[in-house]
C-alpha cells in the first residue's frame, strides 16, 4: 500500500505518524484523514497554546499545525515512505483564532516532481479561516523516514 492508503486504512498508523513528530505530539495534533496528495489534521483547543489572556491559539501554533499537515500531504503524495524536509514556508494570518476553538487544517500537495513538493494548506475554526500556508518540501536521500509506513506483510 502507498502511504496515504495505509494511513487512511489504519487509525493506529495515523496516531503513530504524529507520535513520531515530538512537537506535533506535544501540542495534541491529530491526523484525521488522508487521501492521494491530501491530509487533514485537527488541533483540539488548549489554554496553554493561547497567544495571551482571552486569545485563541498563538499564530506560532498555527505554523506548527500547518507545517505538520503540509508534511502529511507530502507523505500522501509519495509511493513509498521517504524522508523529506521543509524547504520554505510562507504563512499568512488574516484573522485571529477564536479563544476556545478547535482547529481543522487541510493540506493539498499541488505538484511533486519526485524531488520537490509544492503544498498549500489552511487552518480553520469552524467556517472561519484563520491562517494559510504555502510550503515547499524536498526529498532527503540517504536518510530514513520518520515512520516506515510499510504495509506489505503487516
Amino acid at each position, binding site marked *: 500500500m502507498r502511504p496515504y492508503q495505509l494511513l487512511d486504512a489504519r487509525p493506529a498508523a495515523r496516531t503513530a505518524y504524529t507520535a513520531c513528530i515530538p512537537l506535533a505530539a506535544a501540542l495534541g495534533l491529530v491526523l484525521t484523514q488522508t487521501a492521494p496528495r491530501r491530509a487533514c489534521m485537527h488541533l483540539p483547543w488548549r489554554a496553554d497554546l493561547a*497567544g*495571551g489572556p482571552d486569545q485563541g491559539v498563538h499564530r506560532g501554533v498555527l*505554523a506548527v499545525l500547518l507545517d505538520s499537515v503540509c508534511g502529511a500531504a507530502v507523505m500522501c503524495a509519495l509511493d513509498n515512505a521517504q524522508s523529506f524536509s521543509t524547504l520554505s*514556508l510562507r504563512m499568512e494570518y488574516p484573522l485571529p483564532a477564536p479563544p476556545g476553538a478547535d482547529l481543522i487544517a487541510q493540506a493539498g500537495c499541488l505538484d511533486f516532481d519526485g524531488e520537490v513538493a509544492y503544498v498549500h494548506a489552511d487552518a480553520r475554526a469552524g467556517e472561519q479561516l484563520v491562517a494559510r500556508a504555502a510550503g515547499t518540501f524536498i526529498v532527503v536521500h540517504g536518510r530514513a523516514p520518520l515512520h516506515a509506513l510499510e504495509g506489505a506483510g503487516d
Partner: protein
Amino acid sequence: MTDPALARAGAWLAANPFAVLLRLEARVDEAGGLICVLPMRPEVIGNFRIGAAHGGALVMLLETAGELELCARGLVCTQVIDSSVDYLRPATGAALHARAVLVRQGRRVANLRMTAWSDDPSRPVVSGQANYRLAAPGGVGSSRT
C-alpha cells in the same frame, strides 16, 4: 541594548503562553544586540532522527525575534500579517539563536528580516522576513499574536 529594553522583551515573552511553553528567551549578545533563543528541548523537535527543530517552531522563533526587536524599540505590534521562512541547514544543536533586523518602519507596518543559527552565526539554519502591523502612534492597539 538598554536594560529596560531587555526587560520589556522579557516581560513580553513571559505574557505569551506559547512562548513560555517553548521556553523562548531574550538575551543580549556581545555587541549589545537582542537575540531570541530557543532551547532545543525534546518537545520542540520535528525530525527525531537528526534532532532537528520542527519547521513550525522555527517560524515561531523568527517571528518572535522580530516582535522582540519591535518591542525593544518601544513599538507595539498588533498582528503579524505574513512571514516567509527559508530552511537552509538542519536546525540541530543545543539551542537556536535568532536576530532580527529592521528593514523598514512605516506608519502602519514594519518589515523585518531574521536569521537563526545554532553554533555559528555565519552558517544560518533558517532565514526569514515578516510584515508586522503596528499600533497607531499615541494609542494602544489591542494586541493579538
